[in-house]
């Protein structure tokens, strides 16, 4: 074989994504990205021994039938997640029966802390997509722990909640699958604000297709979208979240300048500051390229305020426990 002696410094490198937490959500994101052929390389890491390794091998074998090749590997240590363009953090525990909200917040914030130090050292130029729950608070935690430009830290919320809303709209209509706008703002929890009245199905405004009663039902079902799956499955959904993560990764790597509702740090937008919450943003090569300020009516503004306050409560719990002091 002839070595062409490429000068490494000048060589263009492929696109690399690290996924910390190779549970169902992280692995499905990796699988979705592999099937689309978006990246050159995906590195999986999981705290549970063997999980990342086993899934990486399985996904790598599936790519033999994908339209484009993707290299899937497992990191032995978090330090192996190096030089990534994007790092997706799905690490965290789910809330169990006897756990208080405070317990969950502190446990997951500590998990984030344990992985974020490695990300800072080994992928210092990465854009971080946070998927850990409670989503908005954990995204805030990453802001505080990295001190990075807010453009580079994005929480998965609206991309998933919006797809759940679009699904509910389709359930009512029975047509227009895949043609519905996805617009949910606010927190990624019980105070989320689905806006089905604002979107369209293909070229037709939903207001010409659905009644007020149906809108109310869609909003309710969207809010309970995650819980509904848990009820049937006994565990959280992961296809929807996995694909939503992949969509955000694609938007960034492709520099698509795509509008996606996501949890980002506000600095005066929508009259709020120093809080992470879901709003429509433009995703591109720099991460959050732009925050879009929509005109909200009084009622929606009030709901948004409630949503922001619920996130702030979580942040305050961490402050009260001295989490950010170190």
């Amino acid at each position, binding site marked *: 074989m002839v070595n062409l002696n490429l000068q490494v410094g000048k060589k263009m490198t492929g696109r690399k994504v690290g996924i910390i937490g190779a549970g169902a959500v992280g692995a499905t994101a990796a699988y979705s990205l592999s099937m689309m052929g978006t990246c050159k390389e995906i590195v999986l890491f999981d705290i549970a021994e063997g999980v990342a390794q086993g899934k990486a091998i399985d996904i790598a074998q599936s790519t033999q039938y994908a339209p484009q090749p993707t290299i899937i590997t497992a990191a032995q240590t978090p330090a192996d997640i190096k030089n990534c363009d994007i790092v997706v953090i799905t690490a965290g525990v789910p809330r169990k029966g006897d756990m208080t909200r405070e317990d969950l917040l502190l446990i997951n914030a500590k998990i984030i802390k344990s992985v974020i130090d490695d990300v800072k050292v080994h992928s210092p130029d990465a854009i971080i997509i946070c998927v850990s729950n409670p989503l908005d608070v954990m995204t805030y935690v990453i802001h505080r722990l990295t001190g990075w430009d807010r453009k580079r830290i994005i929480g998965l919320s609206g991309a998933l909640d*919006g797809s759940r809303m679009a699904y509910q709209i389709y359930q009512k209509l*029975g*047509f*227009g*699958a*895949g*043609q519905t*706008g*996805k*617009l949910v703002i606010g927190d990624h929890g019980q105070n989320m604000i689905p*806006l089905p009245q*604002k*979107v*369209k*199905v*293909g*070229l*037709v*405004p939903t*207001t*010409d*297709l659905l009644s007020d009663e149906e809108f109310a039902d869609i909003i309710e079902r969207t809010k309970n979208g995650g819980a509904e799956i848990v009820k049937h499955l006994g565990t959280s959904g992961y296809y929807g979240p996995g694909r939503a993560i992949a969509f955000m990764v694609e938007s960034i790597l492709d520099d*698509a*300048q*795509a*509008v*996606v509702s996501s949890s980002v740090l506000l600095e005066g937008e929508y009259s709020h500051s120093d809080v992470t919450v879901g709003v*429509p943003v*433009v995703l*591109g090569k720099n991460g959050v*390229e*732009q925050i*879009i*300020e*929509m*005109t909200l009516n009084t009622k929606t503004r009030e709901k948004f305020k409630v949503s922001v306050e619920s996130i702030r409560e979580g942040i305050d719990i961490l402050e009260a426990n001295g989490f950010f002091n170190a």
Partner: protein
Amino acid sequence: MAKGKKVTVIGTGNFGSTVAFILAMNGTCHNVVLRGRNYDVTKGKALDMSQAANAARQHTIVKAAKGPEDMAGSDVVVITAGAPRTPGMSRDDLLIMNADIVKMYAKEIKEHAPDAVVVVVSNPLDVMTYVALKYTGFPRERVLGMAGILDAARMAHFIYEKLEYGAGQIRATVMGGHGDTMVPLPKFTTVAGVPIDDLLDSEEIGEIVKKTRNGGAQIVNLLGDGSAYYAPAKSTTVMVDAILKDTNQIHSCAIMLQDDYGYSDIVSGVPVMIGAGGAEQVIEMTLKNLQVRKFRDSVASVQEMVDTLQELKFFDDL
């Protein structure tokens, strides 16, 4: 088990060829039949496309039709045939010339592909759709004109030029006839659900509407010799894919109105739900007064051309 899908494309100019090429690259149908006036040229293009499909690892086979019988069994027939308007030719000259061409092919389709859904793209679009409907004798849901998808794509592009983001996510709405009287509905436009009013001011929106109306002419002027075909062909395959895959998605298409939006026995562009049977439902949107008036003008301009054909006794052989 269902057989593979088959699409016939009539007309092998830039438009028809590009439609066939996109279908071959997407692999949405197993067979594409090209029907052109010159068999050798048509066969040359068909071979080239079949070979491209192999490079793309797709299974689509493109064949040249020797005669109208080769369109037998088509799920969809696309009529792109028609003459462009050349200098010195009046609008009526063009109208009658293309109406004759569409009439001829419509009769062939009626005989050889009686179960197909027909997608018309020949111009003037709405009138040609009307002619194809009359001469195939098909129910209205199986004869559709491609216009609104293209006009909306153009509008979306001009919106993108202003915003510099959201490409591919801009849902524009254009209804009415495909021509000077098209009815762009900027108030209905969203970018990933965000209303356009939050992103652009009314002056910018006005400019976009103007550019959209002029979208086809702008490209004609730039090319110097011929008209656009990439966006028109892609818009056509959106309809073809929706039919072949039975997607039940909503698209703006030209269709014979029957008590829709207050009109009957005239073709215009309205939102329809597309599935395997063609337009399975016409969707009525709530229009404001100004929009209602613009739609009325648009319908009237199509009616005028139908009347011209009537006066020329074009339909007398029906």
